[in-house]
């Protein structure tokens, strides 16, 4: 509950490029710090020159007043520094683009207005996994994201893990990264994609390899059966209201593919692409009034349910762990 300090915000922020948790982000953070330090030194030197030009007595600033200083400071120095920086930057860039290896985990992320569809390629005998707005990954293993879009341009960005890469119609962009330690890393759409662009976030949850296997196992299962009459009624209402036209709940007649797959929606940390916490209350509010909460998103508000029915649907969804 204690207020986080400025230092915490920067170095352990959920969405901070300066709190790297993988080799891509670390490499860039290192480059950043080197450039910040160099820039600070250069800036101070230029300002000192300027101050000297104004403040030194006329007899003692002659060395600053000729063409020589313009050539030295304006041409020679920058050319030397920038050549070094360019070589360093190119060498770094080279290490950040990697080929697939046999143990690379391939995950397709499809940007949609205004959420993320996530699809894991099948591995071994397992099926592919479809989920939304939350990407679970193992630590210590290369992960290749294959980025596409279903509508407009989005940009996939998890600052603690890597730089951003756009999702552009008609092309597939590949981003390979790795995560060093378990944790939750927040990502967000970085290219303006229309009305609710500000509300298009997601979480990356990194697990130790064993935990990831367990998560994967759980995700492969079909949706749980309702355990109480309330939940059963919720499922009935969910199907009757036509939610299945857009959403899939594997193991039920709901097989829509326009909106997020809800088979395990209750297990996710948030709803509406990282916009709200996930619980029965927020689910109910979202169903009843999604257009007010996230204007111009593609899901219509459903103000049709009675209070009890709304609760039942929300409870059913929350039970889909």
């Amino acid at each position: 509950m204690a207020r986080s300090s400025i230092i915490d915000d920067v170095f352990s922020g959920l969405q901070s490029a300066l709190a790297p948790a993988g080799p891509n982000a670390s490499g860039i953070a290192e480059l950043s710090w080197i450039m910040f330090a160099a820039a600070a030194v250069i800036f101070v030197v230029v300002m000192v020159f300027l101050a000297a030009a104004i403040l030194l007595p006329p007899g003692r600033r002659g060395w600053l007043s000729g063409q020589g200083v313009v050539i030295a400071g304006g041409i020679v120095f920058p050319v030397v520094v920038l050549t070094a920086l360019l070589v360093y930057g190119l060498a770094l860039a080279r290490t950040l683009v990697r080929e697939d290896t046999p143990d690379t985990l391939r995950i397709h992320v499809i940007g949609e207005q205004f959420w993320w569809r996530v699809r894991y390629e099948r591995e071994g005998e397992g099926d592919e996994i479809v989920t939304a707005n939350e990407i679970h990954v193992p630590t210590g293993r290369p992960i290749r994201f294959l980025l596409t879009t279903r509508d407009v341009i989005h940009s996939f960005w998890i600052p603690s893990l890597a730089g951003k890469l756009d999702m552009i119609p008609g092309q597939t962009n590949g981003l390979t990264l790795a995560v060093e330690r378990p944790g939750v890393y927040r990502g967000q759409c970085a290219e303006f994609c229309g009305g609710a662009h500000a509300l298009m976030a997601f979480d990356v949850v990194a697990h130790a390899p064993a935990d990831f296997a367990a998560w994967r196992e759980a995700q492969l299962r079909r949706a749980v059966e309702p355990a109480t009459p309330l939940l059963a009624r919720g499922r009935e209402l969910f199907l009757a209201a036509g939610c299945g036209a857009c959403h899939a709940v594997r193991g039920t007649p709901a097989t829509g593919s326009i909106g997020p797959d809800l088979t395990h929606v209750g297990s996710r940390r948030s709803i509406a692409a990282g916009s709200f916490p996930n619980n029965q209350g927020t689910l109910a509010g979202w169903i009843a009034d999604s257009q007010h909460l996230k204007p111009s998103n593609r899901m219509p508000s459903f103000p049709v349910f009675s209070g009890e029915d709304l609760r039942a649907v929300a409870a059913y969804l929350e039970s889909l762990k």
Partner: protein
Amino acid sequence: MTATVHKTPRAEERTGPAGLPNPAPRPEGEIEALKHVWRAPKGLNFITVVNNTYVGLFYVGTAFLFFILAGILALIMRTQLAVPQADIVSQGTYNQLFTMHGTMMMFLFAVPAVEAMGVYLLPNMQAARDLPFPRLSAYAFWAYFFGGLAFFCSLLFQVAPDTGWFMYPPLTGTKYSPGINADFWLLGIGFIEISAIAGAIEIIVGVLKTRAPGMSLDKLPVYAWAMLVFAALIVFAFPAVILCTLLLEIERAFGWPFFIAEKGGSAMLWQHLFWFFGHPEVYIIFLPAAGMVSMMVPTIAQTPLVGYRLVVLAIVATGFFSFGVWVHHMFATGIPQLSLSFFSAASMAVSVPSGIQVFAWIATIANGRLQLTTPALFILGFLFIFTLGGLTGVMVGMVPFDWQVHDTYFVVAHFHYVLIGGMVFPLFAAFYYWTPLASRKPLSEKLGRWVFGLMFVGMNVTFFPMHLTGLIGMPRRVYTYPAGLGWDWLNMTSTIGAFMIAAGVALFLFDLVRRFRITEDNAGNIWNAGTLEWLPSGDYANRSIPRVTSREPLWDQPHLAADVEAGRYYLPNAPTGGRETIVTSPITAEPQYVVQMPGPSWATVLGAFFTAAFFILLTVKLVIPAIVCAVIAVGMVIWWLWDTDPGPAQATVDIGGGIRLPTYVTGPMSHSWWAMVVLLMVAGTLYACLLFSYLFLWTVSPDVWPKPDALPELPWPLLPAVLYAASSLAVVLASRSLRRVPAGGAGAAGVWPMRIALAAAIPLVVAAVATDLAAQSGTGLQPTESAYGAVVYMFVSLQGFYAVVLVLMGVFTLARSLAGKLDGVRRGTFDNTMLLWHFAVVQGLVGLAVTALFPRLVGG
């Protein structure tokens, strides 16, 4: 009439009136005649004024108005972002606010403001009486004025564009933006771009052709160099954005899929074209400001600029390199590494010239003695802010770093440092510095310190924290953000800073209202500057046009002001009885002829009004009224042009010093020929961009390119080619026979061969386009079916547009012949028509060759 502050020279320093071109005292009544010719219209007619000093001030004022309006939008946004999850404005409104803020600051403030300063300052700095095309600058201003206001008003009706100032498709296509918001941007801004190009042509010809005699390029004020390169950048950069706005508007209106991936189009095509304009745009804004700084620094240090040649070199180099960095905005789009690296290298290169300039200013300050006036403060603030912005600019040029900070508040911070530091601070310095030229009283030095202090501190408080906001994850263009990510206090700080800037600007406005009064008895050279704009002047500019022998003539020729004012230099009168100035050679500035210039006319104001009305009515889909306005606008332009090819008033006139100059020339020496050539460079660049689009779309979607057997059969493309060639030949014949028409001999029978040949050329060029169209549609190709169809029909449509213009110009030229205003000497109108004609024909032939041969080459 002005109190120039320079010491009275000792007698031996003076060359003496005997060495000057004209004797004094001047004849009785000469000054009155000069005043009469150049007077500004009175009453309501005042708005038809074309003198650069008035149009320039209107222009600066309007640009400043848009600065304030766009600034208010920024304040609303900063208020919304002060705390997480605020709801001061809705999501939809916020999206309109940031789009309008960016668009207005770029297109309605920054570019017009620097262009406006150019219109105001350049003729004075070069001691010309006006820019060479006064009506064109008036038209450009009024078009911008009406168009800009109408564009801003879209915000009041909640139909303002809401997709960001760079308008990326497919978000801006009809599928995802069905309303008219995007159309407002495309038509409104497309139109203002045309106004900017008009201004650029004016400035290029003005700098190269209307300088004081003796002001060879090595003595050209740095500001004029900067404006020359600025205008060249507009010529080569703006066509790209005109083309992409045109393509997108055509896609939206008629469904031609240039940017739709499913049909072979590409969203990346937009990004290439937009940023090919968009990055030079930054330097289009910065170079004129840097040029102004290079004028002000020597004055405030009271010593010539150190490293003049290096600074010119830096300006030229910036101009070139700025075209090699456009992909710098597309580092995160998945373009292969090696390609990105070329742009990374160019981004390094473009930063070097800025370093040269910064050190040249520091050296100048060290060489002289800085007076800490308000302009000086703003320049020091500029050096501080711009240096920081330049350093972060090098950072974002590094590809991996840019992957993190692209589209975050870090780049928001970076470009505000560059633009506010690099342009707004120099502009405020310029306001303080040059106000004594226009106003009876200078602005308050006392308040100026407060204005500077508030703006400087506010600027840093607002934007410095944003570097960090971006690094810890905040993307730009979000109307809200969650608490708990560490962004809260940073945003609150930025908001506080924004209101400090606003307070500074408000204080400046207060001072402006209190002290700024336009009069002819202006405050004069209160800073003891060395350049020609500080010569005493009236509506006619300088009493006589000096011969220049150095870069700071007022310092090196102490009697210059007095001698100019006494009429001892060139052209102290109005020998043709109309407005005129001396046209000089482009490198050495030797006098070539005296150009007669048009005066005020309602045609410019009304033409601009109806042009703007046409675009706005088209946006709101009132097609019939739009067409009516277009016809009226064309009529106004014809009215305006009718008296701008006056022919020789008299064979030669004496400008003094034994120099007799012709009053009318045509061909490569004439200013109008130069303007036409520059216009053709604009048109050629536009065409090059279209060719690029064709090739780019092919690399993206070769599958929509036809097999050779689906193309028009080979004889088909030859027919339009022959017709094009024939029309050009007819124009050549017309030109030859026109040469044989004696001056004033328009009534003779000898004029008919010319008329017949020109009249024949018109149907030939129309037939060429028609047969080209028939050939393409004969294969069943539809423009809506694929990106290939769209781009091929775009080639044809562009030729159709040129055909319409050529018909208008051809008929106009014939009409002038019939009215007796065209002969072997007075043939400027014909020459311009001819230049455009040959250009359009060559372009048509290139288009035919590409569309007929390229698919056969690659589709075997």
